[in-house]
């Protein structure tokens, strides 16, 4: 049989997308650093490849993460992705079994029911025909759900859904048509040749009853092939690029490639891996301030189209709530920071006035941070606690020290930040200390990730105070106060520290469990990373968070970040405290209680 003309749209589309993907993959890999490329070459033969294959199967085909978010949404994705994957694989096996070889023209497996009009014979023939119909049914159920989701996304656990652009619409329409057209095409062939199975044969019989099938056979197969071809050609300008690129991302990530502070091939791979599913829209708190165009899905889209505005880029709290929800696992915060670095003119002060004298020698360096200086009761509590535990410490920024540098990085001022980092690093290394204790999660993040302090443990005071308690250097005492603990973004999602603050608090107060906590915790709204938002908008975000706290009627709101404390204090009558204050309050009361009663002086004895 000669290659039918109708298969050309499919073949051309497929060749186009395959060559396109090869070319862009080469471009992206070339845009990685040399060390990244070496890393990849080294790891390809190792277990990382197997793990990547496993992850591709679990995430790109089965969509485990989406299942976790919402089972119906997960089923929709699985039925489409895994169903289509199996349809291709099983289709190939069917053709291979039929032709007793694997070398047959590709179109013969894709358009098998047209290529082989004879009804299936034998056990293998019936098995394959039934399987293929079953897979088609599976996919069609997913397509049906996709239609329904367009009109009612709430049924899928999503309050919002992304808006589509022209490329997306074309690809989406093609995708929606592919499988119904396949059903009709196979149905028509089945009606004519009786080569269908439990789904296609009844469809064919039905169609045969009402339509002149011989006239229709070629056109419906044309339509099916065209839908496939259009889908392939529209793929690069649509969100469906994520299907192949996500696989590349999984492999690169498994090989150890990580986001850098500049745009490179990995950034591009991540950007194209976004499926624009819109799951990140729901988790974004900017919605509470009625800001609806700066969410990650839109920013990635604009980066891809090179049309990103500062307004969109900077109007974000960098809280990371979208990142933990992203089913593809894109480093959304890092991408945004990188983009800020790339798109901002360096302010680049020389910082000549930063001169370092010799640092005092100490076991522990304490760095309070700018925000802690603005919440002095935290600083004071820490000083008292360190003194009480007789820690040999140096209060590095008691009088003068530059900022940790993180706010500058978040604002895109990497070069300026690096100067501050270098200055602070010298001070810390000179002190000979093995532990650096910080009171601010923003500082904690940059000290532990960007400072490169060999042999120095960077600890947030939540961790350090817990260590002191565990060493018996701080007394514990449980009070009946009921508190909620607010996870600061940079400490929780940013650094994965959820348990230590809770363990510490558990020694002193009664901790209430909240609905949105740990990974799901809200941002207080005070984030330094957003330099576009108005104060009123911040207040709306904050009030929304405070509303949740109120539901639990806590005696106190406790957090581990001076900025969160400052933000919440302004919006509530409930006491807001830092962990360190809670601990010091208890310790100081225990000190007073342990003292022998002071003899009361008679009035005439009071020295004047």
């Amino acid at each position, binding site marked *: 049989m000669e290659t039918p003309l109708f298969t050309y749209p499919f073949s051309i589309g497929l060749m186009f997308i395959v060559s396109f993907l090869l070319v862009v993959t080469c471009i992206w890999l070339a845009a990685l650093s040399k060390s990244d490329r070496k890393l990849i070459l080294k790891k390809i033969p190792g277990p990382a490849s197997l793990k990547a294959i496993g992850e591709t199967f679990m995430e790109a085909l089965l969509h485990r993460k989406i299942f976790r978010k919402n089972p119906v949404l997960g089923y929709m994705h699985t039925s489409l992705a895994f169903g289509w994957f199996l349809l291709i694989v099983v289709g190939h096996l069917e053709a291979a079994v039929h032709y007793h070889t694997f070398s047959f023209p590709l179109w013969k497996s894709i358009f098998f029911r047209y290529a082989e009009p004879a009804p299936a014979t034998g056990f293998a023939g019936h098995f394959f025909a039934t399987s293929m119909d079953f897979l088609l049914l599976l996919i069609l159920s997913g397509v049906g759900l996709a239609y329904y989701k367009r009109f009612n996304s709430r049924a899928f656990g999503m309050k919002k859904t992304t808006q589509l652009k022209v490329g997306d619409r074309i690809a989406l329409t093609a995708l929606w048509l592919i499988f119904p057209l396949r059903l009709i095409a196979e149905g028509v062939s089945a009606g004519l040749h009786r080569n269908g199975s439990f789904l296609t044969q009844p469809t064919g019989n039905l169609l045969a009853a009402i339509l002149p099938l011989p006239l229709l056979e070629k056109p419906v197969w044309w339509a099916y092939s065209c839908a496939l071809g259009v889908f392939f050609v529209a793929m690069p300008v649509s969100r469906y690029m994520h299907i192949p690129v996500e696989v590349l991302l999984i492999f690169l990530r498994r090989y150890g490639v990580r986001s850098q502070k500049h745009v490179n091939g990995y950034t591009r791979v991540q950007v194209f891996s976004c499926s624009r599913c819109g799951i990140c829209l729901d988790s974004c708190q900017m919605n509470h301030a009625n800001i609806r165009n700066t969410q990650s899905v839109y920013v990635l889209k604009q980066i891809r189209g090179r049309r990103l505005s500062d307004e969109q880029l900077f109007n974000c709290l960098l809280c990371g709530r979208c990142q933990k929800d992203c089913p593809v696992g894109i480093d959304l915060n890092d991408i945004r920071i990188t983009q800020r670095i790339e798109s901002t003119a360096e302010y680049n002060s020389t910082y000549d006035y930063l001169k370092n004298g010799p640092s005092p020698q100490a076991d522990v360096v304490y760095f309070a941070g700018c925000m802690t*200086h603005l919440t*002095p*009761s935290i600083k004071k509590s820490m000083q008292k606690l360190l003194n009480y535990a007789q820690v040999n410490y140096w209060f590095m920024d008691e009088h003068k020290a530059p900022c940790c540098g993180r706010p500058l990085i978040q604002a895109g001022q990497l070069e300026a930040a690096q100067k501050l980092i270098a200055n602070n690093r010298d001070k810390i290394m000179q002190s000979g200390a093995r532990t650096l204790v910080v009171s601010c999660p923003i500082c904690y993040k940059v000290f532990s990730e960007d400072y490169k302090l060999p042999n120095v443990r960077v600890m947030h005071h939540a961790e350090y105070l817990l260590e002191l308690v565990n060493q018996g250097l701080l007394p514990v005492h449980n009070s009946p106060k009921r508190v909620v603990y607010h996870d600061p973004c940079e400490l929780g999602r940013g650094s994965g520290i959820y348990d230590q603050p809770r363990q510490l608090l558990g020694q002193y107060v009664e901790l209430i469990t909240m609905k949105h906590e740990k990974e799901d915790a809200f941002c207080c709204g005070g984030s330094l990373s957003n330099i576009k938002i108005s104060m009123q908008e911040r*207040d709306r975000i904050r009030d929304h968070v405070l509303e949740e706290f109120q539901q639990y009627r806590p005696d106190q709101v406790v957090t581990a970040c001076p900025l969160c404390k*400052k933000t919440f*204090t*302004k919006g509530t009558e409930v006491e807001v405290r830092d962990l360190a204050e809670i601990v010091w309050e208890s310790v100081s009361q225990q000190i007073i209680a342990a003292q022998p009663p002071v003899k009361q002086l008679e009035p005439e004895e009071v020295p004047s």
Partner: protein
Amino acid sequence: MSKPKKVITIGGGVAGTEVSSLLAELGYDVTLIEKNSQTGGKLNGWSHLFPTGRPAAQVAEFLQHKVQRNSFKTICQTDVSQVVFGNGSFLVKTSGDERLPADAVVISTGFDIFDATRKEEYGYSVYENVITSVDLENRLKAGAPITTAAGNKPCRIAFIHCVGSRDEKCGNHHCSKVCCVTGVKQATELAKQLPQAEIFCFYMDLRMFGLPYESMYREAQEKYNIQFIRGRLSEAAENADGTLQIKAEDTLSGRPLKMQVDLVVLLVGMVPGKNTAHMADLFELQREPNGFLQTEDPHLFKNRSSRKGVFLAGTCTGPMTVDETLDHARSAALDIHHYLQNK
């Protein structure tokens, strides 16, 4: 007039007592509801009033005389718990389970003082030697010498203007108006009491709107050598000896500035009172974006609320000096009189 019409005044500070006295004098049946144990409001805590330097007690006494002369019913330690709207009349229920009918209501619930702990970077209630202008005024009234927490004479004192006023981060956009001149007044009083002390005022703008205020400001600089530095405080920190290190920017010389002082006085602003907010809810009144009660017309009807028959007097409508509060209360009395006459 067969039976006198009934007026209820809610809040017995300067505005509330004055409006009640005047309406009683005009022959109305007035009931004043006050949440505290005595009337007089915050004036009772003030030492001397600007610009004259007259003891606040004298003004309070004058107002109290008027109250006694025009005997009207005063219910203290009582809150308003509920309001029922009738046809042109009101039924006010109190926390003491009284049900008081009224033909008109005056709201004179006043202001609250900005809670300086909300500006934690200034160290109020964290550091012993950081006090507010209200604390200072209370101490001046008590007649005790002004000392540091350790009981020493302060050698250097810093006044910080605009604490909780014109501060977006506190959510307060408005100017509290009276703190600038209060700062000048208090700084001068301290300069008189502690001639050896160096006194600094950190300000953004100095708004000397009253006729004699500018001369007070001039005198503070020329006669009392008080130094005015244009710059907002960024933070205060405590030294080991209990003195304070303050950081600011001198915006006239464009330099960051650090200073060691013995005492910091925060000139706290005026915010809408909690009771004012409560009344706005009970009487369903409109409020300005800054939380103060909205007047029917900012030019013509400054004593009328957004609800007919509910009148406003004093600082529940915005920051005012004591003198302005008295004027506002008097105009309220006249407005209510007209309203009840024509009813």
